[in-house]
């Protein structure tokens, strides 16, 4: 162990470069992990973090809230389904907005309208607020936090064209839809907003029905009951509705491919590095073996170096990742993913040690007698 540490202390540049390479890869992995989670939360946070356990789309909507239209016939079918406890309407549209008194800079904003109920927490409301209160009536909204166009309490969002204004009275985390700042308002506020930007519009139909099962009925049973009533209805639990939104699984699959690549690269880099180092010090290792150093000790030194190098890379990479994880990227809010740090640290350390076993095998193959012939590690 002493020898391993001394070697690293004397070859700071060489080992420093390996630490830098691993740190960069760790940083990239963790950053992309935050990016993935931020993207998915930005896409479907509004579905995942609203309070209705079941969402009912029309089959025509293909599981996109704005693409779904619930006709009066379909609405009646949902309301008549067995096992239904509560049910409400939900509408969603994307608008161009400006902030009152902000010089007219425009941004995209999504409005989700739900039936408020007596306390503003009717089905479809954000599950939890971080500031302010739920809407008490029309023209009030709970806004999503995060993103470049983040709202604050008291903001008035003015829709263009038409000048329809909505005041932000509450804030909630992770309730964005389609990576746009999102407002949860009363259903009538949403309907009014739709008609304000298009004077030709007829009465908007709800995009989705939100439902909760009656006592003794599970979410899955209610989903089944609703889907059995009509082939034009597509009921999903909250989690399924979020996960099966078009694009979510593709994002996850794309990132999994990228993570797999990184997961392969780190042990490749580590393994190749220690193999090269082992070749370079072949003569010294042979000499050490010739003067009585046991092979096990040399392998232990190698493994200690591997663990220290990868450990240092993980620490530096995580340190680089931390400030970036507090940042915003366009409309996305990133966050520090502790679980990802732990998972990748264990995985990369394990893979790194495994990859160095090739170099360890070379060390074990050293024949001390070759100190007299010069064959070394044996190429």
């Amino acid at each position, binding site marked *: 162990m002493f020898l391993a540490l001394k070697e690293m202390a004397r070859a700071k540049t060489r080992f420093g470069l390996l630490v830098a*390479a691993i740190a960069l890869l760790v940083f*990239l992995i963790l950053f992309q992990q935050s990016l993935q989670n931020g993207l998915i939360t930005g896409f479907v946070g509004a579905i995942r973090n609203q309070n209705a356990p079941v969402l009912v789309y*029309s*089959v*025509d*909507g*293909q599981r996109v809230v704005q*693409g779904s*239209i619930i*006709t009066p016939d*379909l609405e009646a079918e949902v309301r008549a389904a067995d096992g239904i406890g509560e049910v409400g309407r939900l509408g969603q*549209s*994307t*608008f*161009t907005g400006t902030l009152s008194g902000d010089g007219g800079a*425009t941004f*995209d904003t999504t409005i989700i309208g739900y039936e408020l109920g007596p306390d503003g927490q009717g089905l479809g409301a954000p599950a939890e607020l971080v500031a302010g209160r739920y809407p008490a009536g029309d023209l009030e909204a709970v806004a999503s936090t995060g993103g470049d166009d983040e709202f604050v309490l008291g903001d008035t969002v003015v829709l*263009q*064209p038409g000048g329809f204004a909505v005041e932000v009275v509450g804030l909630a985390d992770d309730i964005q839809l389609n990576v746009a700042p999102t407002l949860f308002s009363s259903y009538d506020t949403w309907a009014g907003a*739709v*008609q304000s*930007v*298009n004077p*030709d*519009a*007829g*009465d*908007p*139909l709800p995009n989705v029905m939100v439902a909760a099962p009656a006592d003794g009925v599970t979410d899955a049973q209610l989903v089944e009951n609703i889907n059995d009533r009509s*082939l*034009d209805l*597509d009921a999903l639990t909250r989690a399924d509705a979020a996960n099966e939104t078009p694009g979510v699984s593709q994002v996850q699959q794309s990132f999994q*491919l*990228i993570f797999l*690549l*990184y997961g392969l*690269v780190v042990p*490749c*880099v580590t393994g*190749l*590095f220690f*193999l*090269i180092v082992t*070749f*370079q010090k072949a*003569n010294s290792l042979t000499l050490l073996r010739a003067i009585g150093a046991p092979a096990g000790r040399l392998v232990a030194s190698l493994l200690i170096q591997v663990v220290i190098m990868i450990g240092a890379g993980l620490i530096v990479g995580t340190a680089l990742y931390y400030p970036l994880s507090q940042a915003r990227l*366009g409309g996305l809010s990133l966050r520090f993913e502790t679980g990802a740090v732990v998972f990748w640290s264990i995985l990369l350390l394990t893979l790194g040690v495994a990859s160095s076993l090739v170099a360890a095998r070379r060390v074990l193959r050293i024949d001390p007698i070759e100190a007299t012939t*010069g064959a*070394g590690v044996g*190429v």
Partner: protein
Amino acid sequence: MNLALKELRRRPGRFATATVIITLIAILLMFLGSLLDGLIRSSTGAIRAQDADAIVYSSTAQASFPRSRIDVDVRTQIEALPGVDEVGGIGLVQLGARVPGNGPRDLANVALFGYELEPEGVPAPPPDGQAYADEILKADNVEVGMTILVGPARTPVEVIGFVSDTSFNGQGGLWASEATWRSTLAENRPDAQLADGVWQALVVRGDDDIAVQIDAATSGATDSYTVSEAVNAIPGVEEQQGTFNQIIGVTIVVALVVIGLFFALLTVERLSLYGVLKALGAKSLTIFGGLMVQAVVVTLVASTVAGVLVVLLDLVIPPGSIPIFVSAGSILSSTALLLLAAAVGCSFSLRRVLKVDPASAIGTTG
């Protein structure tokens, strides 16, 4: 150089590991490039197909069809401009369509356009109730002569022919008359219907700078783009390109690291041989040139294998599933980037080759 090629021919196993790793990276690179091309094509085909000098949205629309609304008086203003030759309305509604023979929950995603000026490759507007379909809808079993039912109101639209590369946001384009579009919109999206004469956007032919002229003439009521600007303004297009290019860039760096490490390893293994070669009169640059040739050959072999596999993958993937578009340009550009990475990665070994002392050939090490 001959020596390097001979080694490749006689000891191919030595290079197998690197070739396999680079092949995997090349497949990934070409697949990512083709996926990006496919995504962009499927998102933007309908706009790219426009034979226009400007696409005009309303000023607050953020280049979104559903949010745009061009009133009759604005159109009249634009038509009166001296640099304008032709003006046509265009409108969109995105819906699910029921295809005869498919399951009741198995809908095709369609983007139904009403148009006045025909895009490239699309004939003049068909009679009411009929449409030309983008050929990606063939993957949903749409056929010529078939009547599909569009949207929850099941508006019937008869497909009378296929056109290519006209999809929008990944949905197959359906190109129909103004009346078909208006009735489909009103029946299925009453919240988005528009009065007669009002369009979501205009397609304008005229002077090259007509987009600028239009916005100036309408006093800020419009937001006009050239076709290429309109393509980039489609929500998500630039973000997709940025993200994919970042991933592709990182993949190139990964290739560079792998090639660099592999040839560093080869060089370390052969230092004593290089010492002998130098003692026999070989120059450092000749030896390094040999390494470079090996790196280039390994990369070319890997890229060729990867190119073939990606083309096969493209043939195997059913149309309409993964939006992959494999082109020679994409494969060649990926190969060029990998060759660059190979050259840079291999050059890390140059210092080691230069340091080899010919005198070491007399001893035991390089």
